Protein backbone atom coordinates (compact mmCIF):
# COMPACT_ATOMS: atom_id res chain seq x y z
CA UNK A 1 0.00 0.00 0.00
CA UNK A 2 2.94 2.32 0.76
CA UNK A 3 4.18 1.75 -2.78
CA UNK A 4 0.77 2.80 -4.12
CA UNK A 5 0.74 6.03 -2.10
CA UNK A 6 4.35 6.76 -3.09
CA UNK A 7 3.46 6.34 -6.77
CA UNK A 8 0.34 8.53 -6.42
CA UNK A 9 2.40 11.24 -4.71
CA UNK A 10 5.16 10.91 -7.32
CA UNK A 11 2.62 11.22 -10.18
CA UNK A 12 1.01 14.24 -8.53
CA UNK A 13 4.38 15.98 -8.24
CA UNK A 14 5.44 14.91 -11.74
CA UNK A 15 2.30 16.48 -13.24
CA UNK A 16 2.15 19.53 -10.98
CA UNK A 17 5.76 20.59 -11.53
CA UNK A 18 5.29 20.89 -15.29
CA UNK A 19 5.10 24.41 -16.64
CA UNK A 20 1.89 23.68 -18.60
CA UNK A 21 0.18 22.65 -15.35
CA UNK A 22 1.13 25.92 -13.67
CA UNK A 23 -0.04 27.90 -16.72
CA UNK A 24 -3.33 25.97 -16.68
CA UNK A 25 -3.76 26.64 -12.94
CA UNK A 26 -3.17 30.36 -13.44
CA UNK A 27 -5.51 30.45 -16.46
CA UNK A 28 -8.31 28.75 -14.53
CA UNK A 29 -8.24 31.54 -11.93
CA UNK A 30 -8.61 34.20 -14.63
CA UNK A 31 -11.01 32.45 -17.05
CA UNK A 32 -14.22 32.88 -14.94
CA UNK A 33 -13.60 36.62 -14.70
CA UNK A 34 -12.93 36.88 -18.45
CA UNK A 35 -16.16 34.99 -19.16
CA UNK A 36 -18.11 37.78 -17.45
CA UNK A 37 -17.32 39.98 -20.47
CA UNK A 38 -19.35 37.98 -23.05
CA UNK A 39 -21.98 37.31 -20.35
CA UNK A 40 -22.67 41.03 -20.05
CA UNK A 41 -23.89 41.04 -23.68
CA UNK A 42 -27.00 39.03 -22.82
CA UNK A 43 -30.38 40.33 -21.66
CA UNK A 44 -32.40 38.21 -19.23
CA UNK A 45 -30.74 34.91 -18.25
CA UNK A 46 -27.26 36.24 -17.52
CA UNK A 47 -26.61 33.83 -14.65
CA UNK A 48 -27.54 30.91 -16.88
CA UNK A 49 -25.30 32.16 -19.70
CA UNK A 50 -22.38 32.58 -17.27
CA UNK A 51 -22.86 29.04 -15.99
CA UNK A 52 -23.07 27.65 -19.55
CA UNK A 53 -19.77 29.30 -20.37
CA UNK A 54 -18.17 28.02 -17.18
CA UNK A 55 -19.36 24.47 -17.90
CA UNK A 56 -18.07 24.68 -21.48
CA UNK A 57 -14.71 25.94 -20.24
CA UNK A 58 -14.69 23.07 -17.72
CA UNK A 59 -15.21 20.53 -20.52
CA UNK A 60 -12.48 22.26 -22.55
CA UNK A 61 -9.81 22.26 -19.85
CA UNK A 62 -10.58 18.73 -18.65
CA UNK A 63 -10.16 17.53 -22.25
CA UNK A 64 -6.97 19.60 -22.58
CA UNK A 65 -5.70 18.09 -19.32
CA UNK A 66 -6.18 14.56 -20.63
CA UNK A 67 -4.59 15.27 -24.01
CA UNK A 68 -1.72 17.55 -22.98
CA UNK A 69 -0.81 16.29 -19.51
CA UNK A 70 -2.09 12.75 -19.00
CA UNK A 71 -1.27 11.45 -22.50
CA UNK A 72 2.38 12.69 -22.49
CA UNK A 73 2.83 11.21 -19.00
CA UNK A 74 1.75 7.76 -20.18
CA UNK A 75 3.66 8.13 -23.45
CA UNK A 76 6.88 8.80 -21.49
CA UNK A 77 6.18 5.73 -19.38
CA UNK A 78 5.65 3.52 -22.43
CA UNK A 79 8.11 4.94 -24.96
CA UNK A 80 10.98 5.84 -22.63
CA UNK A 81 10.46 2.82 -20.40
CA UNK A 82 9.93 4.89 -17.24
CA UNK A 83 7.37 2.33 -16.07
CA UNK A 84 10.21 -0.22 -15.83
CA UNK A 85 11.82 1.89 -13.05
CA UNK A 86 8.71 1.44 -10.90
CA UNK A 87 8.16 -2.17 -11.86
CA UNK A 88 11.65 -3.15 -10.66
CA UNK A 89 10.89 -1.86 -7.12
CA UNK A 90 9.24 -4.51 -7.20
CA UNK A 91 5.71 -3.36 -7.91
CA UNK A 92 2.99 -5.32 -9.67
CA UNK A 93 1.84 -4.01 -13.06
CA UNK A 94 -1.73 -3.71 -11.81
CA UNK A 95 -0.64 -1.63 -8.81
CA UNK A 96 1.46 0.54 -11.08
CA UNK A 97 -1.55 1.33 -13.31
CA UNK A 98 -3.83 2.07 -10.33
CA UNK A 99 -1.20 4.35 -8.77
CA UNK A 100 -0.71 6.25 -12.00
CA UNK A 101 -4.48 6.54 -12.56
CA UNK A 102 -5.22 7.84 -9.06
CA UNK A 103 -2.25 10.23 -9.38
CA UNK A 104 -3.51 11.59 -12.70
CA UNK A 105 -7.02 12.06 -11.28
CA UNK A 106 -5.71 13.62 -8.03
CA UNK A 107 -3.81 16.20 -10.07
CA UNK A 108 -7.16 17.47 -11.39
CA UNK A 109 -8.33 18.31 -7.85
CA UNK A 110 -6.16 21.46 -7.31
CA UNK A 111 -7.13 22.71 -10.78
CA UNK A 112 -10.81 22.09 -10.12
CA UNK A 113 -10.65 23.74 -6.69
CA UNK A 114 -9.02 26.89 -8.08
CA UNK A 115 -11.55 27.01 -10.91
CA UNK A 116 -14.54 26.55 -8.58
CA UNK A 117 -13.31 29.14 -6.03
CA UNK A 118 -12.65 31.71 -8.75
CA UNK A 119 -16.00 30.98 -10.44
CA UNK A 120 -17.96 31.22 -7.17
CA UNK A 121 -16.29 34.58 -6.42
CA UNK A 122 -17.24 35.72 -9.94
CA UNK A 123 -20.82 34.54 -9.31
CA UNK A 124 -20.96 36.65 -6.11
CA UNK A 125 -19.82 39.64 -8.12
CA UNK A 126 -22.35 38.90 -10.88
CA UNK A 127 -25.18 38.49 -8.35
CA UNK A 128 -24.39 41.88 -6.82
CA UNK A 129 -23.93 43.58 -10.21
CA UNK A 130 -26.92 42.07 -12.04
CA UNK A 131 -29.25 41.09 -9.16
CA UNK A 132 -32.36 40.63 -11.33
CA UNK A 133 -30.64 38.54 -13.96
CA UNK A 134 -28.59 36.09 -11.88
CA UNK A 135 -30.53 33.58 -9.78
CA UNK A 136 -29.48 33.31 -6.11
CA UNK A 137 -27.25 30.34 -5.16
CA UNK A 138 -25.99 30.03 -8.73
CA UNK A 139 -22.46 29.51 -7.34
CA UNK A 140 -23.69 26.52 -5.36
CA UNK A 141 -25.36 25.03 -8.46
CA UNK A 142 -22.13 25.52 -10.35
CA UNK A 143 -20.09 23.65 -7.68
CA UNK A 144 -22.56 20.77 -7.83
CA UNK A 145 -22.49 20.73 -11.63
CA UNK A 146 -18.68 20.81 -11.77
CA UNK A 147 -18.45 17.73 -9.55
CA UNK A 148 -20.94 15.91 -11.78
CA UNK A 149 -19.24 16.94 -15.02
CA UNK A 150 -15.95 15.56 -13.66
CA UNK A 151 -17.45 12.04 -13.51
CA UNK A 152 -17.39 11.22 -17.27
CA UNK A 153 -13.79 12.37 -17.39
CA UNK A 154 -12.88 9.77 -14.75
CA UNK A 155 -14.26 7.17 -17.15
CA UNK A 156 -12.47 8.77 -20.10
CA UNK A 157 -9.17 8.80 -18.15
CA UNK A 158 -9.65 5.09 -17.45
CA UNK A 159 -10.21 4.51 -21.18
CA UNK A 160 -6.95 6.37 -21.79
CA UNK A 161 -5.17 3.92 -19.49
CA UNK A 162 -6.80 1.01 -21.31
CA UNK A 163 -5.57 2.40 -24.64
CA UNK A 164 -2.08 3.13 -23.27
CA UNK A 165 -1.80 -0.39 -21.79
CA UNK A 166 -1.87 -1.88 -25.26
CA UNK A 167 -0.72 0.94 -27.56
CA UNK A 168 2.73 1.16 -29.09
CA UNK A 169 3.26 4.87 -28.52
CA UNK A 170 2.20 8.48 -28.73
CA UNK A 171 0.47 8.43 -32.12
CA UNK A 172 -1.70 5.43 -31.30
CA UNK A 173 -2.68 6.69 -27.85
CA UNK A 174 -3.59 10.17 -29.11
CA UNK A 175 -5.50 8.89 -32.14
CA UNK A 176 -7.53 6.30 -30.25
CA UNK A 177 -8.26 8.64 -27.34
CA UNK A 178 -9.35 11.37 -29.74
CA UNK A 179 -11.66 8.94 -31.54
CA UNK A 180 -13.20 7.77 -28.26
CA UNK A 181 -13.59 11.36 -27.05
CA UNK A 182 -15.24 12.42 -30.31
CA UNK A 183 -17.71 9.54 -30.21
CA UNK A 184 -18.46 10.12 -26.53
CA UNK A 185 -19.03 13.82 -27.22
CA UNK A 186 -21.32 13.55 -30.22
CA UNK A 187 -23.10 10.21 -29.91
CA UNK A 188 -25.42 10.60 -26.87
CA UNK A 189 -27.18 13.74 -28.21
CA UNK A 190 -27.59 12.04 -31.60
CA UNK A 191 -29.16 9.00 -29.91
CA UNK A 192 -31.49 11.36 -28.03
CA UNK A 193 -32.42 13.03 -31.30
CA UNK A 194 -33.11 9.65 -32.91
CA UNK A 195 -36.00 9.26 -30.47
CA UNK A 196 -37.74 11.94 -32.53
CA UNK A 197 -40.21 10.31 -34.94
CA UNK A 198 -39.34 12.56 -37.89
CA UNK A 199 -35.61 11.85 -37.56
CA UNK A 200 -36.17 8.14 -36.88
CA UNK A 201 -38.22 7.82 -40.08
CA UNK A 202 -35.50 9.37 -42.22
CA UNK A 203 -32.70 7.24 -40.69
CA UNK A 204 -32.17 3.54 -41.54
CA UNK A 205 -32.97 1.27 -38.58
CA UNK A 206 -29.52 -0.40 -38.65
CA UNK A 207 -27.83 3.01 -38.16
CA UNK A 208 -29.71 3.53 -34.92
CA UNK A 209 -28.84 0.00 -33.75
CA UNK A 210 -25.16 0.49 -34.59
CA UNK A 211 -24.97 3.84 -32.80
CA UNK A 212 -26.76 2.40 -29.78
CA UNK A 213 -24.30 -0.52 -29.68
CA UNK A 214 -21.27 1.79 -29.83
CA UNK A 215 -22.77 3.96 -27.11
CA UNK A 216 -23.12 0.93 -24.84
CA UNK A 217 -19.40 0.18 -25.20
CA UNK A 218 -18.09 3.69 -24.47
CA UNK A 219 -18.53 5.97 -21.46
CA UNK A 220 -21.44 8.37 -21.75
CA UNK A 221 -19.76 11.78 -21.83
CA UNK A 222 -23.07 13.59 -22.18
CA UNK A 223 -24.06 15.54 -19.12
CA UNK A 224 -26.17 17.91 -21.23
CA UNK A 225 -29.38 17.51 -19.24
CA UNK A 226 -27.50 18.00 -15.96
CA UNK A 227 -25.78 21.20 -17.07
CA UNK A 228 -29.00 22.50 -18.68
CA UNK A 229 -31.03 21.84 -15.53
CA UNK A 230 -28.46 23.33 -13.17
CA UNK A 231 -28.01 26.44 -15.31
CA UNK A 232 -31.77 27.07 -15.04
CA UNK A 233 -31.82 25.85 -11.40
CA UNK A 234 -34.29 23.11 -12.25
CA UNK A 235 -34.35 20.23 -9.74
CA UNK A 236 -32.25 17.13 -10.40
CA UNK A 237 -33.69 13.85 -9.19
CA UNK A 238 -31.31 12.35 -6.55
CA UNK A 239 -31.77 8.83 -7.94
CA UNK A 240 -30.73 9.88 -11.44
CA UNK A 241 -27.72 11.77 -10.07
CA UNK A 242 -26.70 8.70 -8.05
CA UNK A 243 -27.16 6.46 -11.11
CA UNK A 244 -25.11 8.89 -13.21
CA UNK A 245 -22.21 8.83 -10.69
CA UNK A 246 -22.36 5.04 -10.28
CA UNK A 247 -22.37 4.58 -14.06
CA UNK A 248 -19.14 6.52 -14.54
CA UNK A 249 -17.27 5.27 -11.49
CA UNK A 250 -18.02 1.64 -12.30
CA UNK A 251 -17.08 2.22 -15.94
CA UNK A 252 -13.75 3.68 -14.80
CA UNK A 253 -13.08 0.72 -12.48
CA UNK A 254 -14.00 -1.80 -15.19
CA UNK A 255 -11.81 -0.07 -17.79
CA UNK A 256 -8.89 -0.02 -15.37
CA UNK A 257 -9.30 -3.72 -14.54
CA UNK A 258 -9.26 -4.42 -18.31
CA UNK A 259 -6.19 -2.15 -18.64
CA UNK A 260 -4.39 -4.13 -15.90
CA UNK A 261 -5.13 -7.40 -17.69
CA UNK A 262 -3.82 -6.05 -21.01
CA UNK A 263 -0.76 -4.47 -19.35
CA UNK A 264 0.15 -7.71 -17.51
CA UNK A 265 0.46 -9.53 -20.85
CA UNK A 266 2.43 -6.76 -22.50
CA UNK A 267 6.07 -7.31 -23.47
CA UNK A 268 7.97 -4.36 -22.02
CA UNK A 269 11.41 -5.44 -23.10
Amino acid sequence: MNQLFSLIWFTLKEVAFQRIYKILLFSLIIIPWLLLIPTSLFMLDMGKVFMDMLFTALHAWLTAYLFFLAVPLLVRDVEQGICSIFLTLPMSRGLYLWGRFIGVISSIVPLLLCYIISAVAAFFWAESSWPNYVLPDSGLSFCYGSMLILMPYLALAAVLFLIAAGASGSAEITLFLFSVWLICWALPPVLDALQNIEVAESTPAWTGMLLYGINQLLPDLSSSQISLSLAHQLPLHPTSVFAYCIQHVTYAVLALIAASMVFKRRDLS
Partner: protein
Amino acid sequence: MPCLLLLLLRWSSNGVTLADMIIRLALIAALIAAIGWGRSNTPPRQEFLPLTTSQWSENHALWHRAWAGPVPAFAADMAVLNIFNIYAQATATPAENREPWWSALKYQLRLGQDMDPYFRDIYRLTEGLLAYEAQDMQEAINILSLSEPYLNSSDPLLVAAFIAHQELKNDVLAIPLAIKAADKPDASPLAVGFASSLIKGQSGCRAALAFLNSRLGSVPEKYQQGIVRRIRKLQEGEECREEIQGLL
Protein backbone atom coordinates in the same frame (compact mmCIF):
# COMPACT_ATOMS: atom_id res chain seq x y z
CA MET B 1 4.55 42.92 -34.04
CA PRO B 2 7.24 45.12 -32.35
CA CYS B 3 8.26 42.08 -30.27
CA LEU B 4 8.71 40.05 -33.43
CA LEU B 5 10.78 42.86 -34.90
CA LEU B 6 13.03 43.03 -31.84
CA LEU B 7 13.44 39.27 -31.86
CA LEU B 8 14.42 39.27 -35.51
CA LEU B 9 16.83 42.16 -34.96
CA ARG B 10 18.47 40.38 -32.05
CA TRP B 11 18.73 37.16 -34.01
CA SER B 12 20.07 38.95 -37.07
CA SER B 13 22.67 40.99 -35.19
CA ASN B 14 24.91 37.97 -34.60
CA GLY B 15 27.84 38.43 -36.94
CA VAL B 16 26.19 40.19 -39.86
CA THR B 17 27.28 43.29 -41.70
CA LEU B 18 25.43 46.60 -41.62
CA ALA B 19 24.32 46.16 -45.24
CA ASP B 20 22.82 42.74 -44.45
CA MET B 21 21.01 44.22 -41.48
CA ILE B 22 19.57 47.06 -43.59
CA ILE B 23 18.36 44.57 -46.20
CA ARG B 24 16.72 42.44 -43.53
CA LEU B 25 15.10 45.48 -41.94
CA ALA B 26 13.78 46.55 -45.33
CA LEU B 27 12.41 43.05 -45.90
CA ILE B 28 10.68 43.06 -42.51
CA ALA B 29 9.24 46.55 -43.20
CA ALA B 30 7.95 45.32 -46.57
CA LEU B 31 6.33 42.28 -44.95
CA ILE B 32 4.65 44.43 -42.29
CA ALA B 33 3.42 46.83 -44.99
CA ALA B 34 2.03 43.86 -46.97
CA ILE B 35 0.12 42.62 -43.91
CA GLY B 36 -1.29 46.12 -43.32
CA TRP B 37 -2.30 46.46 -46.97
CA GLY B 38 -3.93 43.03 -46.94
CA ARG B 39 -5.92 43.84 -43.81
CA SER B 40 -7.13 47.22 -45.01
CA ASN B 41 -8.21 45.82 -48.39
CA THR B 42 -10.04 42.73 -47.12
CA PRO B 43 -13.76 43.34 -47.68
CA PRO B 44 -15.67 44.11 -44.47
CA ARG B 45 -18.10 41.51 -43.13
CA GLN B 46 -21.07 43.59 -44.25
CA GLU B 47 -20.30 42.64 -47.83
CA PHE B 48 -20.63 38.90 -47.14
CA LEU B 49 -23.89 37.02 -47.10
CA PRO B 50 -24.94 35.06 -43.98
CA LEU B 51 -23.50 31.56 -43.69
CA THR B 52 -26.84 29.81 -43.27
CA THR B 53 -30.03 30.80 -45.05
CA SER B 54 -31.60 27.35 -45.26
CA GLN B 55 -34.81 26.26 -43.56
CA TRP B 56 -34.55 24.73 -40.08
CA SER B 57 -35.27 21.00 -40.01
CA GLU B 58 -35.00 18.09 -37.60
CA ASN B 59 -31.92 16.84 -39.47
CA HIS B 60 -30.23 20.18 -38.86
CA ALA B 61 -31.15 19.81 -35.20
CA LEU B 62 -29.49 16.38 -35.20
CA TRP B 63 -26.19 17.76 -36.50
CA HIS B 64 -26.25 20.72 -34.16
CA ARG B 65 -26.88 18.46 -31.16
CA ALA B 66 -24.00 16.23 -32.21
CA TRP B 67 -21.73 19.26 -32.50
CA ALA B 68 -22.84 20.76 -29.19
CA GLY B 69 -22.42 17.43 -27.34
CA PRO B 70 -22.79 17.93 -23.59
CA VAL B 71 -23.08 21.73 -23.84
CA PRO B 72 -26.27 22.46 -25.84
CA ALA B 73 -27.03 25.50 -23.67
CA PHE B 74 -23.73 27.03 -24.77
CA ALA B 75 -24.77 26.46 -28.41
CA ALA B 76 -27.94 28.43 -27.62
CA ASP B 77 -25.81 31.26 -26.17
CA MET B 78 -23.72 31.29 -29.34
CA ALA B 79 -26.94 31.44 -31.39
CA VAL B 80 -27.94 34.58 -29.47
CA LEU B 81 -24.55 36.17 -30.19
CA ASN B 82 -25.01 35.23 -33.86
CA ILE B 83 -28.43 36.89 -33.78
CA PHE B 84 -26.85 40.13 -32.56
CA ASN B 85 -24.36 39.98 -35.43
CA ILE B 86 -27.04 39.10 -38.00
CA TYR B 87 -29.19 42.01 -36.85
CA ALA B 88 -26.24 44.40 -37.08
CA GLN B 89 -25.47 43.16 -40.60
CA ALA B 90 -29.13 43.31 -41.65
CA THR B 91 -29.59 46.90 -40.49
CA ALA B 92 -26.41 47.88 -42.35
CA THR B 93 -27.84 46.38 -45.57
CA PRO B 94 -30.37 48.18 -47.82
CA ALA B 95 -33.94 47.13 -46.93
CA GLU B 96 -34.50 45.32 -50.25
CA ASN B 97 -31.48 43.04 -49.68
CA ARG B 98 -32.24 42.00 -46.12
CA GLU B 99 -34.12 38.77 -46.86
CA PRO B 100 -31.07 36.43 -46.53
CA TRP B 101 -30.28 38.01 -43.16
CA TRP B 102 -33.83 37.50 -41.91
CA SER B 103 -33.67 33.84 -43.03
CA ALA B 104 -30.45 33.49 -41.06
CA LEU B 105 -32.08 35.18 -38.06
CA LYS B 106 -34.99 32.72 -38.18
CA TYR B 107 -32.54 29.80 -38.39
CA GLN B 108 -30.55 30.99 -35.37
CA LEU B 109 -33.71 31.54 -33.31
CA ARG B 110 -34.87 28.00 -34.12
CA LEU B 111 -31.42 26.68 -33.26
CA GLY B 112 -31.33 28.55 -29.94
CA GLN B 113 -34.83 27.40 -29.01
CA ASP B 114 -34.03 23.79 -29.89
CA MET B 115 -30.76 23.76 -27.95
CA ASP B 116 -32.10 25.44 -24.81
CA PRO B 117 -35.92 25.73 -24.73
CA TYR B 118 -35.77 27.38 -21.28
CA PHE B 119 -33.68 30.32 -22.51
CA ARG B 120 -35.79 33.50 -22.20
CA ASP B 121 -33.47 35.65 -24.34
CA ILE B 122 -34.44 33.59 -27.40
CA TYR B 123 -38.15 34.34 -26.91
CA ARG B 124 -37.42 37.99 -26.22
CA LEU B 125 -35.40 38.27 -29.44
CA THR B 126 -38.10 36.40 -31.36
CA GLU B 127 -40.75 38.94 -30.43
CA GLY B 128 -38.44 41.93 -30.84
CA LEU B 129 -36.58 41.07 -34.01
CA LEU B 130 -38.37 38.32 -35.90
CA ALA B 131 -41.88 39.71 -35.45
CA TYR B 132 -41.32 43.43 -35.63
CA GLU B 133 -38.08 43.80 -37.62
CA ALA B 134 -38.21 40.85 -40.01
CA GLN B 135 -42.04 41.04 -40.09
CA ASP B 136 -42.32 37.23 -40.01
CA MET B 137 -45.28 37.13 -37.63
CA GLN B 138 -46.31 33.52 -38.24
CA GLU B 139 -42.82 32.14 -37.56
CA ALA B 140 -42.51 34.35 -34.47
CA ILE B 141 -45.81 32.93 -33.15
CA ASN B 142 -44.59 29.38 -33.87
CA ILE B 143 -41.36 29.91 -31.91
CA LEU B 144 -43.05 31.75 -29.03
CA SER B 145 -45.69 29.03 -28.66
CA LEU B 146 -42.89 26.44 -28.28
CA SER B 147 -42.16 27.97 -24.85
CA GLU B 148 -45.35 26.47 -23.40
CA PRO B 149 -43.99 23.24 -21.84
CA TYR B 150 -40.78 24.86 -20.60
CA LEU B 151 -41.44 28.29 -19.08
CA ASN B 152 -43.62 29.25 -16.13
CA SER B 153 -43.84 32.76 -17.50
CA SER B 154 -46.93 33.70 -19.49
CA ASP B 155 -45.03 36.41 -21.43
CA PRO B 156 -44.04 34.54 -24.65
CA LEU B 157 -47.53 33.06 -25.11
CA LEU B 158 -49.16 36.38 -24.34
CA VAL B 159 -46.99 38.10 -26.94
CA ALA B 160 -47.78 35.33 -29.45
CA ALA B 161 -51.51 35.85 -28.81
CA PHE B 162 -51.10 39.61 -29.12
CA ILE B 163 -49.26 39.30 -32.46
CA ALA B 164 -51.91 36.91 -33.80
CA HIS B 165 -54.71 39.28 -32.74
CA GLN B 166 -53.13 42.62 -33.55
CA GLU B 167 -50.94 41.93 -36.58
CA LEU B 168 -52.50 38.85 -38.24
CA LYS B 169 -56.08 39.72 -37.20
CA ASN B 170 -56.51 36.01 -36.53
CA ASP B 171 -58.45 35.52 -33.29
CA VAL B 172 -58.93 31.80 -34.03
CA LEU B 173 -55.15 31.50 -33.54
CA ALA B 174 -54.92 34.13 -30.81
CA ILE B 175 -57.56 32.81 -28.39
CA PRO B 176 -55.99 29.36 -27.65
CA LEU B 177 -52.61 31.06 -27.17
CA ALA B 178 -54.11 33.66 -24.82
CA ILE B 179 -55.89 30.93 -22.83
CA LYS B 180 -52.61 28.99 -22.54
CA ALA B 181 -50.89 32.20 -21.37
CA ALA B 182 -53.61 32.74 -18.75
CA ASP B 183 -53.14 29.11 -17.62
CA LYS B 184 -49.49 29.66 -16.70
CA PRO B 185 -48.63 29.55 -12.97
CA ASP B 186 -47.46 33.17 -12.92
CA ALA B 187 -50.10 34.53 -15.31
CA SER B 188 -50.55 38.24 -14.65
CA PRO B 189 -53.93 40.08 -14.70
CA LEU B 190 -52.79 41.42 -18.07
CA ALA B 191 -52.68 37.90 -19.56
CA VAL B 192 -56.05 36.98 -18.03
CA GLY B 193 -57.63 40.29 -19.09
CA PHE B 194 -56.32 40.01 -22.64
CA ALA B 195 -57.64 36.45 -22.98
CA SER B 196 -61.05 37.47 -21.63
CA SER B 197 -61.32 40.44 -24.02
CA LEU B 198 -60.48 38.17 -26.98
CA ILE B 199 -63.08 35.63 -25.85
CA LYS B 200 -65.62 38.41 -25.39
CA GLY B 201 -64.99 39.65 -28.92
CA GLN B 202 -65.26 36.16 -30.38
CA SER B 203 -67.90 34.44 -28.24
CA GLY B 204 -69.57 37.15 -26.20
CA CYS B 205 -69.75 38.30 -22.57
CA ARG B 206 -71.00 35.05 -21.05
CA ALA B 207 -68.01 33.11 -22.42
CA ALA B 208 -65.65 35.83 -21.20
CA LEU B 209 -67.22 35.81 -17.72
CA ALA B 210 -67.09 32.00 -17.60
CA PHE B 211 -63.41 32.14 -18.54
CA LEU B 212 -62.63 34.77 -15.88
CA ASN B 213 -64.45 32.81 -13.21
CA SER B 214 -62.53 29.68 -14.19
CA ARG B 215 -59.24 31.61 -13.80
CA LEU B 216 -60.07 32.84 -10.28
CA GLY B 217 -59.26 29.55 -8.59
CA SER B 218 -56.06 28.87 -10.49
CA VAL B 219 -54.16 32.18 -10.30
CA PRO B 220 -52.14 33.22 -7.24
CA GLU B 221 -54.07 35.18 -4.60
CA LYS B 222 -52.19 38.40 -5.29
CA TYR B 223 -53.52 38.41 -8.87
CA GLN B 224 -57.13 37.61 -8.02
CA GLN B 225 -58.17 41.20 -7.28
CA GLY B 226 -57.46 42.24 -10.86
CA ILE B 227 -59.66 39.44 -12.21
CA VAL B 228 -62.46 40.24 -9.75
CA ARG B 229 -62.35 43.88 -10.90
CA ARG B 230 -62.52 42.76 -14.52
CA ILE B 231 -65.52 40.49 -13.84
CA ARG B 232 -67.29 43.39 -12.13
CA LYS B 233 -66.44 45.74 -14.99
CA LEU B 234 -67.78 43.27 -17.55
CA GLN B 235 -70.97 42.68 -15.55
CA GLU B 236 -71.57 46.41 -15.16
CA GLY B 237 -70.82 47.22 -18.81
CA GLU B 238 -73.76 48.28 -20.96
CA GLU B 239 -72.97 45.82 -23.76
CA CYS B 240 -72.65 42.82 -21.44
CA ARG B 241 -75.70 43.70 -19.36
CA GLU B 242 -77.79 43.74 -22.52
CA GLU B 243 -76.36 40.42 -23.72
CA ILE B 244 -76.89 38.67 -20.38
CA GLN B 245 -80.42 40.12 -19.97
CA GLY B 246 -81.22 39.17 -23.59
CA LEU B 247 -80.24 35.59 -22.90
CA LEU B 248 -82.30 35.51 -19.69
